[in-house]
């Protein structure tokens, strides 16, 4: 039962990555400042495993880097043409499932889905669009929910449940009908105790949970991903520091 600080390593695209016991591949990679694409993963929360963007090859087999524990001697591939092509396809699928009309979205330039697509060189969403018609929830005095942009990452669900202790959000339905719901009898955000101090108000990686009366305040050229591609941020928490 040695409690010594272990310095086991695995290789990620031929780089040697040290890890501590219990760390997942993506945690160890981020600690070593190596970016693995991800949308539903956030270091402050338990992994969700829905977006599949962090898919890597471990010893030749695909797995999610956000759930797979690092082990000594693993051979992990991430930045390969094959994996990036699959990630691009996943991103395209997310784009056609929702109404991602970036030209009119307040999150444009600060959106992780959009920035990931840029980084993967996505020129078009390729597939036929679904054009969903989910109602907008503008009932809350300070926040708006545009559910047609939701990628079901569940970060708001996890933040509200595990950090805020409020359980404001949940995912409901099955298959393509899966959608974000608000835990109130009316189903309206106004009938919850959700507010701007909540962690859940700030974790949405896309343009679903938006503060009212605050759109388009950052000039083009100065938005998060105008400055640097998402791969330069490595860790999602680096994005939160801009929130003020």
């Amino acid at each position, binding site marked *: 039962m040695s409690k010594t600080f272990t310095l086991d390593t695995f290789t990620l695209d031929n780089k040697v990555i040290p890890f501590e016991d219990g760390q997942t591949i993506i945690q160890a990679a981020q600690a070593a400042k190596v970016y693995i694409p991800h949308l539903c993963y956030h270091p402050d929360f338990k992994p969700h495993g829905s977006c599949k963007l962090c898919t890597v090859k471990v010893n030749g087999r695909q797995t999610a880097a956000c759930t797979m524990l690092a082990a000594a001697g693993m051979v992990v591939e991430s930045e390969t043409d094959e994996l990036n092509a699959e990630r691009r396809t996943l991103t395209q699928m997310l*784009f*056609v499932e929702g*109404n*991602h*009309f*970036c*030209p*009119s*979205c307040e999150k*444009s*330039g600060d959106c992780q889905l*959009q920035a990931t*697509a*840029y*980084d993967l*060189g*996505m*020129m*078009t*969403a*390729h597939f*036929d*669009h679904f*054009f*969903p*018609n989910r109602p907008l929830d503008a009932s809350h005095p300070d926040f708006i929910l545009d559910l047609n942009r939701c990628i079901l990452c569940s970060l708001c669900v996890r933040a509200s449940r595990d950090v805020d202790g409020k359980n404001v959000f949940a995912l409901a339905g099955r298959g393509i009908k899966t959608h974000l719901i608000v835990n109130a009898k009316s189903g309206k955000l106004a009938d919850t105790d959700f507010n701007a101090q909540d962690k859940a108000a700030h974790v949405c990686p896309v343009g679903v949970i938006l503060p009212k009366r605050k759109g388009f305040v950052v000039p083009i050229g100065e938005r998060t991903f105008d400055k640097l*591609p998402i791969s330069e941020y490595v860790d999602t928490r680096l994005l939160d520091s801009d929130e003020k």
Partner: protein
Amino acid sequence: MDAPVKHKTAKKKLKVATTSLAGCFGCHMSFLDIDERLFELLGHIEFDRSPFTDIKEAGECDIGLIEGGLCNAENVHVLREFRRQCKILVAVGACAINGGLPALRNPIPLPAILAEVYHTGIGLSDGMIPNDPELPLPLNKVHPIHEVVKVDYFIPGCPPSADAIWQVLSDLMAGREPALGHGLIHYD
């Protein structure tokens, strides 16, 4: 005769057709934003059917640039003409690629939209929905162009920057596979 004969040895210019379907002409304006580079471009290409020319129907072309999605029957007709005539068809801008902001009308039933605009909107009296056969019928929904014809390349942006358009055209003219890096690829 000593007069110099004008030989047709100059490299054959590429023919380029452009059109705006359910577009706002913004992508064409962004194209013109290549500024002085237009002169260089005109050394290599010749415009066929385009809002820049007076040619009514596209002839055989090397490159077709399409701005705008499909919102009515005439759009579909023109798009098919372009696909028939152009070796390479390029979707330019958000509308051609995913329907763009005009596709925000998709969740609303078309009769409700027409009634609002022509019948019940504020300030209308005795309004009627235009029904002359001269007018193309609107489609139920706005569609990206790749849902109707095969599209060879896509230049995203609303509009794409002049540099992005220039990059893709330069690549195509040089016979290279077009590629846009960070900074040139954007959707907004």
